[in-house]
């Protein structure tokens, strides 16, 4: 039984819940999406119908889902966390078995009316599952080895399924999100130190495996690492993305080249400019000021989530809010590091800005749970 359910009388009911929504967060999410529409309009060469319009329609749908979810009590979400997690695992297995192959990787499941990417769903499902687990587990047992092993299995199962697809970017994000929930739940810091050490060891082993019979990564993945370390080795081949992205970004200057005037994107030098590399278009056309403004919007979203979480007295609500905020953080941080040449190209979109329906829907759904936690938090009289 949730802590909240003892104090149910302090929770707003009915339509009054609308007054208790985290409205600044709604406004921030909308602003970030609006930046996305502007850039998609620009990238399409001034055509709204290509990318911007479908994206707006999906936003409206996603926002509606978010608001509906906010009205549903947070303990309902905790109670069905296990079911959602199992469902997401099922979808991942389904996509591995019979998924649609797109862009060289099988990631999509065609449900008829929508192309679903189960690994996206898994990002929230995992956070919810772990938060529910730590809500159930008495706090004094969190660092017991047995009770640490359970969440590790919960994390590694979907990570394995996603790696099979193969989708390295999502696998890393899943591990990051899961680790944050464990961290916030209070698992002893020693465990993290051990895992970090093991991680460094693993990287060494993986790099050493190259060209051997037991090679652990695919060739294209090694190639991405190569080009990340030195893009200039292959400026028209594998390093092309990074080189062109950096040129676009750097040439923006303080104020940018002006809206719809970016030559790198206009002349098609930039690949995937409406999806993974959209941040470079923003940086090129709107300059340092524009790019920083977007970064600040992202930081504010995280800040509002953390501020909301620390006020919560319910473990599930707090952990799920922090987990979702961290997942969101990893998304934009990894994407930005990637396009700035600080991380290898792993195919992570810029959240809420890149073109893509599945990712945006899942993110807005996740923020629906954050909103629900905020609305239904216990208040002192």
């Amino acid at each position: 039984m949730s802590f909240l359910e003892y104090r149910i009388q302090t929770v707003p009911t009915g339509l009054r819940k609308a007054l208790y929504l985290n409205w600044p967060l709604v406004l921030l999410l909308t602003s970030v999406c609006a930046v996305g529409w502007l850039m998609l309009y620009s990238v399409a060469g001034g055509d709204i119908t290509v990318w911007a319009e479908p994206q707006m329609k999906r936003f409206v749908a996603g926002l509606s889902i978010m608001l509906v979810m906010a009205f549903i009590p947070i303990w309902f979400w905790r109670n069905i966390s296990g079911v959602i997690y199992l469902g997401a695992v099922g979808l991942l297995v389904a996509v591995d078995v019979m998924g649609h192959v797109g862009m060289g990787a099988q990631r999509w499941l065609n449900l008829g009316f929508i192309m679903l990417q189960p690994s996206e769903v898994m990002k929230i499902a995992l956070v919810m599952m772990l938060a529910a687990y730590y809500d159930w587990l008495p706090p004094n047992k969190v660092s017991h080895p047995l009770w640490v092993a359970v969440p590790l299995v919960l994390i590694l199962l979907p990570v394995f399924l996603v790696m099979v697809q193969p989708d390295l970017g999502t696998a890393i994000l899943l591990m990051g999100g899961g680790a944050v929930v464990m961290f916030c739940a209070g698992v002893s810091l020693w465990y993290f130190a051990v895992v970090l050490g093991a991680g460094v060891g693993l990287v060494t082993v993986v790099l050493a495996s190259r060209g051997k019979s037991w090679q652990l990564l695919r060739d294209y993945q090694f190639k991405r690492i190569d080009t990340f370390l030195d893009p200039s080795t292959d400026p028209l081949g594998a390093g092309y993305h990074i080189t062109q992205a950096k040129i676009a970004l750097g040439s923006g200057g303080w104020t940018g080249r002006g809206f719809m005037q970016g030559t790198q994107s206009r002349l098609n030098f930039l690949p995937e400019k409406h999806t993974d590399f959209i941040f470079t278009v923003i940086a090129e056309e709107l300059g340092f000021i524009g790019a920083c403004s977007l970064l600040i919007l992202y930081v504010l979203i995280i800040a509002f989530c953390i501020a909301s979480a620390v006020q919560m007295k319910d473990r599930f609500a707090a952990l799920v809010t922090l987990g979702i905020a961290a997942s969101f953080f990893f998304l934009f941080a990894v994407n930005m590091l990637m396009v700035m040449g600080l991380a290898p190209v792993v195919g992570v979109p810029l959240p809420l800005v890149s073109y893509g329906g599945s990712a945006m829907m899942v993110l807005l759904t996740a923020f629906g749970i954050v909103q629900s936690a905020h609305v239904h938090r216990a208040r002192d009289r």
Partner: protein
Amino acid sequence: MRRIVHRDRDESTRKITRRALFMGGAMSAVVAVLGARLRYMQVDEADQYRTLAEENRISIRLIPPNRGQIFDRNGRLIAGNEQNYRVTITREDAGDVPEILHRLQRVIPLTDAELARTAEEVRKRSAFVSVVVADRISWDEMSRVAVNAPSLPGVTPEVGLSRIYPLDTDFAHIVGYVGPVSERDLAAQKNPDPLLQIPQFQIGKIGVETWMEDELRGQAGSKRIEVNAVGRVMRELDRVEGQPGADLHLTIDAEVQNFAQARLGGESASVVAIDVNTGDILAAASAPSFDPNLFVRGISYTDYAKLTENDHRPLSNKAVQGTYPPGSTFKIITALAALEAGVIDSESTVYCPGYYEIGGRRFHCWSRWGHGHMNLDGAMGKSCDVYFYDVSQRVGIDKIAEMGRRMGLGQRHDLPMSAIAEGVMPDKDWKRRSYDQEWRIGDTINASIGQGYVLASPLQLALMTARLASGRAVTPRLVKSIGGVEDTPPEPPMMDVNPALLRMVRHGMYTVSNKLGMTGYNSRIVDPAMTMAGKSGTSQVRNISAAERARGVIGNDDLPWNRRDHALFVGFAPYDAPKVAVACVVEHGGGGSTVAAPIVRDLLLRILTGKMPPLAAYPESQRARIQTALSEMSLRDFSALASATGVQGRA
């Protein structure tokens, strides 16, 4: 107990808060790195990256392949590619766009509306995108633009290839035309060829151009070019040539096709000629026609309205998509079915009093006075309806329909043309499926003379005649070779109909056209080397009302055009060694033997002789009239055409 939980909870939430704040701190550090990196790249190193962007020059462009050309069976160009000149404008080079456009207006003729459209387009596009101001301008206009170049900054004359149909109206229905790629075209394709995204690229819209699109289009080449930062091409680095589309040769003879089209003249009519041994379509004319070049250039609203509002339907390809009650030409099928079923032989007779009575209803022969005793030759020759009413009752509709299908009726023949009709070959099962009604005696009576539910296209009728004439199960063929590779079909198998029976029906058709007093006698061919055998048909498009019957037969000439009978004729020649079969339908033309038969005769003579029909082949009494008629036909001057298009025939 509850207190312990409480204290525990408080402690654990404090722990969450501590860790959350710690996490926030770590995140801030990452954000600080991001911000610093952004500042380093965009502010400190901005100049360096700006230079790199200016130098960023390699861009890959697609080279559209030359579309395959279409020729007739003798290598005459039907659809080719023509160089055309156009003028484009680029905003950033032009500066003051309205002023430049205004100056351009003094050099080449441009309407104000066109200028306004261009100005709007230029305003919407990015500064360095070039926008087409005028397309398909003449060489003169092009040179004037080039001469005035100094006063027209940003204006560039360009050369491109566009589709041209030198034989304009003759092949509009068969070959069709190309047009710009529409949203619908793109949506219809699963993996659209990137070529389709190129502005100005054209694909087939109807006819052979559409159905052979894959062969005609070819593969795109690509070139790597050096551009400056605003996208202007500085020089070409290297190029990979594409694969031009394959050239097609059709089975059609362009000169025969032109003759057929001219012979139909202003009628709403169509005629199809087939080689009886191979199934090659030698001509497939549909009149009136239209100029496909209008569509390539973008047809004007008024021109298009003229085509759609014409009651002779010039846009419709009547040769394959028009279906008509075949009328008495269908008696060929009824006779064959009866002979095969053994209910008649060539000598058995039926008495025709002018009507046929069954089930209390009376069905009239076209001749009110009746034909008397009729055998097969007589019944075919005089086209006696009662003979076939009687015979059909003894054979039954299912056997007739089965024979019709064997001869090629009631099925869609696969040709690269648009909207090929299936026609209707009705039987009991068909009526139950389509109308949920039982087949009635009257239906068989009507079907026996090609009325009622029976519908056939001129192509199907020509094919029926070809199969009858050669005794082979030929299938129609339109494409002779693709990319120089001859598309040789296997020799058509023999029909599974007793050749003796086919011979009997052929003899009936010989009677029609060559015995005095028979329906087709006036349209006979007197040259014994090219004797024609045929069958006329006149099919009703209206029901004769009781009131009309009471008043007596109304002459066709007294009716409004669109209620007159269709005139049909099918024929083949030479009778003793058939080579060509022709079917003709003249919509609302009146009598088949007077209107359609002469057309079939002329076309057969044109094909068999390979030149204009010789007067000696016609009956003496008609020669004077035919001489004037033939000399007045507006035929294309192919010798002039060859020299005009010879230069670009093989670009």
